[in-house]
């Protein structure tokens, strides 16, 4: 069990894993919206409809990996910290976004092979999903850039050495 947690935390990489994996859905789903809009404006035709389908599918596959990695990072945050609550909102929004894009993909299964313009229902889901995704990703970014979760977690020994050489008062090891 511990080996699995270490894989999901990204210890083997020296870099947390969740923020790496999220690049895929974070690019694929807004990307799918752009391709949808292009097909709507009759640019690209069926190539755009297909591209949008592939992008949503690739995003879903990557999010299956990103979710467990994110959960492991979240459970590492103490409950009384403000970042825990933000993490909870981030999690809830991500569940909604993933469900929306899963439905979205299902709606496209029928006619993505031939259609040259995206239908209204999947387009609406792309807009809605992308809007919620951006809100959720912003919260995810705040967890790193405002609350420092996972920052200096793997490099703390290197920083301790630098601080020690710089004559600082240090916490007990």
């Amino acid at each position: 069990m511990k080996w699995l947690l270490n894989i999901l935390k990204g210890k083997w990489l020296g870099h947390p894993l969740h923020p790496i994996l999220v690049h895929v859905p974070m690019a694929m789903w807004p990307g799918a919206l752009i391709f949808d809009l292009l097909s709507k404006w009759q640019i690209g035709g069926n190539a755009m409809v297909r591209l949008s389908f592939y992008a949503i599918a690739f995003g879903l596959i990557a999010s299956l990996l990103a979710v467990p990695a994110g959960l492991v990072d979240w459970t590492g945050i103490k409950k009384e910290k403000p970042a825990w609550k933000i993490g909870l909102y981030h999690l809830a929004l991500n569940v909604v976004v993933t469900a929306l894009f899963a439905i979205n993909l299902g709606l496209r299964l029928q006619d993505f092979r031939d259609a040259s313009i995206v239908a209204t229902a999947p387009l609406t889901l792309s807009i809605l999903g992308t809007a919620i995704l951006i809100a959720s990703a912003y919260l995810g970014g705040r967890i790193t850039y405002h609350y420092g979760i996972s920052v200096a977690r793997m490099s703390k020994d290197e920083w301790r050495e630098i601080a020690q050489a710089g004559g600082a008062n240090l916490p007990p090891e």
Partner: protein
Amino acid sequence: MNGARSRKREAPISHRSKIEKLKDFLEGKPLRHPIHPMLVHFPIGLLLLSFLIDLASLAFPSVPNLVRDSFYAMLLGLIMALVAAVPGLVDYTDIRSDHPGKRTAIAHMILNFMLVVVYGINLGVRSSSLLDPRISMGPLILSLIGVGLLSASGYLGGRLVYNQGIAVGRHKRHMPTPRDTIHLTTPIPGAEGVFVPIMAAQQLRERETLRVEISAQIMTIVKIDNQLFAFQEFCSHRFGPLSEGSFDGFNVQCPWHNSCFDVRTGKVTNGPAKVDLKIFEMEMREGKVGILLPRQTKSA
């Protein structure tokens, strides 16, 4: 900890130049989130998608439009890479010259430059054969090289944030960060300690900081309410750079995990840090401001 202090914003400072304001904007301070790491999702994801579609075109040549799809994904990915480069360069200029992250950032930048060139060539090479059922060898190899460069560069970018703390908590601060460390040496301290004048401290603006090293002792000097204070540079929690911290009254807040300390006493005023900071006495002597270092005891 109640976290209340960490939510308080540093009051904006009015006397700022247009360049400083533009820089703040590109660093994402109004969004309270850096911009470059937001934008890089797009080139990373889209260029990866393009490569996967290339592979799919080899496996399933009967599926129409794959080569064309890969081209569009790559084109959008490259455009977004160029857009992301602008705030990325601004982030780079903000890294202190002797910061361990500086070298990582240079490598990250060189790799990014190479991958933009490789993908530019790739788009040119494949643009003439968009109707092919499968991707040809030349552009496929270029994509493979591109994905390799992208992975290495993205990894370094992540190390910059998660291991070296670049851009973490930067939006909480309204003053520029120190560009350099000022290195000073002292003679052997006498019985009553030694006075080290620090010229640059005289020109500090309110809440501006200096990062100073005096005989291997690294400290932050800040001006608050027209008084100067000096304390250890490294946060006593995970060693974040306090010279890049933000100030609320006489408190300094670490940019990384928001520990707060009273600059007058060095005492922890908010966690996660538990250990107080080392502080240094500042004095005026013969019209020069400087630090009075205590006589060194060997045990320290």
